[in-house]
């Protein structure tokens, strides 16, 4: 493992010790799972809309380059300025240059996972620009100087009491209260003041429609709407996979997205942004910029199997249903995208040297695959990445970086034994005789026996029993 590699095991170990955190996640995810189940109670409807959603995303990906060109052309025609960034550094630089041109000092942000991927807040701060998260969850996380722990509910790891303490500590005018309505109101008052004076608003994009040059944004709190309409300049950032072909592709995807994410049939706001303020219009920014980020995505696109990763509509359902995520929480992944989708996306975007542990943060139980509204074969991609991690190749950045001679030898020995009936029967007979003598302190066995009894080898194998009982061999 390289120096920069992220230690999932260590971080998850800390999370597991934290009973409060574990309780917060278990409760929250249980609630989300049961609410979602109600939304998709009709299996036939679920199968239908899911197939439709997956086909919208697949069709978009099948002609991605063409659709991106179309998107750029139509956005430009509508007066939206389109910028391309191949790395997060480039994307940050583009955002900064727009800010500097309009002399921006204060930015309000709607929720955007791509801006998390860019570490945009820290970058702007370094350049003397205050950037304020306006989504309540993001705002809480920002006050706490932490990372979001979930892509839909950034502050899901905290309970009301913890938030109450945080507000009291970080907001000047705050009185201590655990009343959720009062807390929300307090945040709203702080944010409203900032909206009025912000120079630039930043948002993410849930979908961009190629055919019409429209940016779609779903949200519940109205903060996204404020960030995209009140400040004179709006910058939207999106990953290049977020494009869909036609306007009619939007409804099925939104329906899957909101029901999978928060179990809502529809969100409070669905913003469709198609141009800056026109003559005679009462609101809207004078300038809209769209920054389209690659950051490794075109590499993912190039591989037919890995490409399926880009289908994701960022609903977070895979996290909610992941038994590993539910135990350790989002921060253990130390990535903007945690959980199953993060475990396949991060290694592809940032390379296997750094993120090669993530595809192993999974028991391959397939709960995520069962739930994913656009049918991403997450576990298969997970398996593929495990294989890339130990074999040199050029499909994924850092392929082969986790190759260990010892591990390779073990599997080689295993395959030689298991591929030869004679060797296999010899080895298993030996284990049946002597296996139980192995001390529990052996590596691997030690980890196993921390909470479990030692597995006991039977005195005779099934092969031996079948022979004795005269079960025919052919």
């Amino acid at each position: 493992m390289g120096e920069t590699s992220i230690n999932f095991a260590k971080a998850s170990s800390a999370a597991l010790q934290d009973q409060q955190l574990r309780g917060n996640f278990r409760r929250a995810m249980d609630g989300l799972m049961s609410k979602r189940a109600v939304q998709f109670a009709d299996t036939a409807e679920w199968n239908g809309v899911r197939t439709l959603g997956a086909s919208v995303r697949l069709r978009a990906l099948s002609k991605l380059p063409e659709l991106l060109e179309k998107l750029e052309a139509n956005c430009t025609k509508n007066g939206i300025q389109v910028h391309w960034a191949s790395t997060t550094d480039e994307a940050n630089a583009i955002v900064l240059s727009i800010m500097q041109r309009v002399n921006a000092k204060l930015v309000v942000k709607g929720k955007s996972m791509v801006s998390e991927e860019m570490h945009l807040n820290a970058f702007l701060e370094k350049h003397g620009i205050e950037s304020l998260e306006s989504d309540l969850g993001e705002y809480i996380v920002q006050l706490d100087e932490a990372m979001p722990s979930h892509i839909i509910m950034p502050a899901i790891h905290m309970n009301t009491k913890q938030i109450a303490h945080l507000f009291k500590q970080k907001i000047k005018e705050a009185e201590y209260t655990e009343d959720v309505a009062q807390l929300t109101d307090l945040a709203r008052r702080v944010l409203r003041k900032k909206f009025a004076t912000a120079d630039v608003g930043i948002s993410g994009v849930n979908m961009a429609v190629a055919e019409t040059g429209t940016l779609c944004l779903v949200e519940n709190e109205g903060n996204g709407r404020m960030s995209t309409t009140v400040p004179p300049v709006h910058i939207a950032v999106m990953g290049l996979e977020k494009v869909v072909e036609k306007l009619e592709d939007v409804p099925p995807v939104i329906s899957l997205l909101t029901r999978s994410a928060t179990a809502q049939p529809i969100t409070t706001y669905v913003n469709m942004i198609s141009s800056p303020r026109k003559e005679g219009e009462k609101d809207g920014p004078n300038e809209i910029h769209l920054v389209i980020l690659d950051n490794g995505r075109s590499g993912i696109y190039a591989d037919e199997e890995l490409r399926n990763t880009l289908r994701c509509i960022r609903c977070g359902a895979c996290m909610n249903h992941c038994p590993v995520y539910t135990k350790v929480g989002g921060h253990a992944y130390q990535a903007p995208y945690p959980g199953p989708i993060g475990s396949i996306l991060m290694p592809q975007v940032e390379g296997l040297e750094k993120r090669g542990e993530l595809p192993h943060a999974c028991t391959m139980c397939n709960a995520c695959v069962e739930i994913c509204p656009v049918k991403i074969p997450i576990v298969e991609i997970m398996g593929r990445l495990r294989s890339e991690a130990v074999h040199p190749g050029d499909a994924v950045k850092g392929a082969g970086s986790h190759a260990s001679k010892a591990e390779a030898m073990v599997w080689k020995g295993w395959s030689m034994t298991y591929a030869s009936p004679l060797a296999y029967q010899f080895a298993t007979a030996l284990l049946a005789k002597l296996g139980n003598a192995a001390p529990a302190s052996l590596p691997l066995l030690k980890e196993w026996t921390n909470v479990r009894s030692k597995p006991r080898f039977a005195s005779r194998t099934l092969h031996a029993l079948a022979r004795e009982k005269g079960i025919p061999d052919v």
Partner: protein
Amino acid sequence: MSHDGTISRTDIERPAIERPDSVYFFGTCLVDLFYPEAGMAGMELLKAQGVRVVFPQGQSCCGQPAYNSGYREEALKVARAQLDYFPGDWPIVVPSGSCAGMMSKHWPDLFKGEPDEARACQVASRVWELTQFLVQVLKVKFEDQGPPVKITWHASCHAQREMGVTDEPKALLRQLANVELVELQREKECCGFGGTFAVRHPEISAAMVGDKVADIENTGAKAVVSGDCGCLMNISGALEGGKKPVRGVHIAQFLKERTHG
């Protein structure tokens, strides 16, 4: 599995087949070493239905451990070695959802582009999980001969999500008149075994199996029945390790005990 790799129940359901004269039994490597009595019980259940059971002595393992660890060439080598031992066109019955899933869902991908791809796919298409075969093909009817007992059922992830086996095992258990089946609150949740996951991430795995054990205890059941030896090794290991008075038992063995005394 469909071409895009995703699972839906309609993909999984096996086409109906006629009751065969003979079947192959694929024992799996865990059963072979740790639970041979479950394997024997599985074969006896089949024989009791008047089916001839063949156990090819050359078989070893479906290749899943290496496949899931990223060593696909090694997995291929082991999987390929199995192909020779199932030459007849009889069904291949497997007392483990996980190994059945590997053979029937992943072998086609594993062998893609290989000279023996067609042969591997042919073998894969004949694979059945044991309870699925007992219910769907043999349409068994069991008569319970044991004393009253309360049990619970743990659903293995691969049986339910790769093989589409969800109701079959419970339907079998419900045929037993003196057996009270109490369902787990989180029946579908993974027990934290995950092959090498349990040793690669022992703490997370321990937390997962801890939740599973608590769920089992809450039911007040005397035994937890499962169709997969990986899960069973993990769960009953944790039950024993925590000195809980609940035993873990493979469904084949449980059914055999209840029906043949």
